[in-house]
């Protein structure tokens, strides 16, 4: 019958229209910004730098190794090493960044800097409302703007952050045990010089 397909189609659209008031399956949008969907835990937007403790300058985990700068596909990270060293979470003296800039207008949120970082120092933030009215300056974020506390990291990615903390604690414990063993070995055999592996 001519027109049967059209009548069927109209019935289908009517069903969808009415259903969008009653069925959750048929209405997937919300009225942003009044209503918001909960953010997914794995969501990523732009990177930030993690610091431990209260003071961001002291606790910054970044050691300015510049691996992320090299690996960043769109080349949006700029790092300069500081001449002075400072102790990291294991107590080892490490470099620190003097300048750490990320050009978020270039960044494509690919998370490769996070993957290549051996020090768990750079992570992805979930903040997405970042628009500015200055086209040229405000999107280049510096070290201070990038620094976020470990608590913030725990708040946005709880599972991942707990894993990272456990791994770091494990490494620290291992290093401490090794150091203790070295001290014990040195005490037991005071005549021999300490082996190079025990350091």
């Amino acid at each position, binding site marked *: 019958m*001519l*027109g*049967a*397909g*059209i009548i*069927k*189609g109209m019935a*289908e*659209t009517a*069903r*969808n229209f009415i259903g969008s008031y009653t069925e959750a*399956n*048929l209405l*997937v949008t919300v009225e942003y910004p009044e209503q918001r969907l909960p953010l*997914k*835990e*794995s*969501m*990523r937007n732009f990177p930030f730098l993690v610091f431990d403790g209260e003071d961001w300058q002291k606790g910054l985990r970044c050691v300015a190794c510049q*691996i992320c700068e090299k*690996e*960043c*596909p769109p080349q949006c990270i700029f790092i300069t090493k500081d001449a002075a060293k400072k102790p990291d979470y294991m107590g080892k003296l490490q470099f620190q960044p003097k300048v750490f800039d990320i050009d978020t207008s270039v960044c*494509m*949120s*690919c*998370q*490769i800097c996070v*993957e*290549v970082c*051996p020090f768990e120092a750079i992570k*992805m933030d979930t903040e997405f409302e970042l628009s500015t009215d*200055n086209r*040229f*300056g405000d999107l280049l974020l510096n070290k201070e703007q990038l620094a976020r506390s470990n608590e913030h990291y725990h708040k946005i990615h709880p*599972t991942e952050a707990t894993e990272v903390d456990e791994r770091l604690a494990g490494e620290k414990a291992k290093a401490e045990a090794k150091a203790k063993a070295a001290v014990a070995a040195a005490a037991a055999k005071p005549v021999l010089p300490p082996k190079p592996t025990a350091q």
Partner: protein
Amino acid sequence: MSDAVVTPLEGVFAPLQFPEPGAPRQLNYSVAPKMSADGSVAGDFLEVAMGPQHPSTHGVFRMDVVLDGERVVKLKPVFGYLHRNHEKIAENASYLGSMPYTDRLDYFCSMTNNWAYALSVEKLAGLQPPERAEYIRIITAELTRLVNHVCLVGFLLQDMGALGTPLMYAFREREKILDLFEALSGSRMMCNYMRFGGCRVDLPAGWLENAKQVVENFPRFLDDFENLLSANEILIARTQGVGALSAALAINAGVTGPLLRACGVNYDLRKVDKYGIYERFDFRVPLGDHGDVYDRYMVRVLEMRESLKILRHALRDIPSGPIMDPKAKIRGFRPKIGEVYGRIEGPKGELGFYLISDGGPNPYRYRVRPPSLINLTILEDMCLGRNVSDVVVILGSIDIVLGEVDR
């Protein structure tokens, strides 16, 4: 600070010049004389540039069409408006660094793009992803196929004049799948999820249940969708017999994917190459008979149903275990000297990556075989002698994404 920096823009945008009233108007189409056999002028051809800013061209794609009245006598596609030399960028980036760029090729199907690239590099370096990673890859790739086909059908209907409704229904379902991708990879469209030798992260808690839910609800939506469309008189009138393509020409022109199968050629790389672990899954390859637009539409709808079969099977059987090959390296990845061509059955056709390694951290040569571009080879053949309104439908049925055509 703003004053000093904004100045470079001055002078770049010249003020708009409005023509004097009464001045001759410049037209953006030309009229060429049509010669009859004895050399006399028999009428006019009209030369029109369709695109690049035209909603029916699915992006910045242009067709220079020569028309005899309403009939197409010549059609030349014009590319390059979105060209960014992806291949050169990749030759200057590390192997891993090209992975996020592959997301941007066919931005509807980042998961399959990732897989094609990861598969090629794995062949080059001799890596073998573990079982669970293979399952995750199949699940994400088939979900991507659903997203692509359902949106394509929506866009095709939009090109035919069904403004909005089918496309919005398609986008509603796509939204649910993109939510799954976001929960898995952190990004809805630019997933950047697969790695050489596995996947980046394991499935989050509860993901499989959500995916099962989506897969369970999808057939009902598909029934509704088909109820709305498949028997619709307007759709049938606009698509049956339009843009018919013979199997011999399709094979010779390198057409792949649903377009080729709509011509009745049984060539699906999931069956032919058996890459990944596709040979464990029971699914059929839908084939068309006439090679016209309606067959392409039906092949895609049937393919979605087969994908759902694979998905149900994979979501049930997925084992636990590691997701990365222990031999795989994130930093300092340097495959041996050699070359490889790896290909997968992307939603749009055969997506291949050809890589030459010179032993360094960057590929010496990185080439993408874009299915969208090569499927356009036969666009002129399909459009000759048809009306302009059919050109729009035929182009819609080819399923191009300009991020991949122009690279």
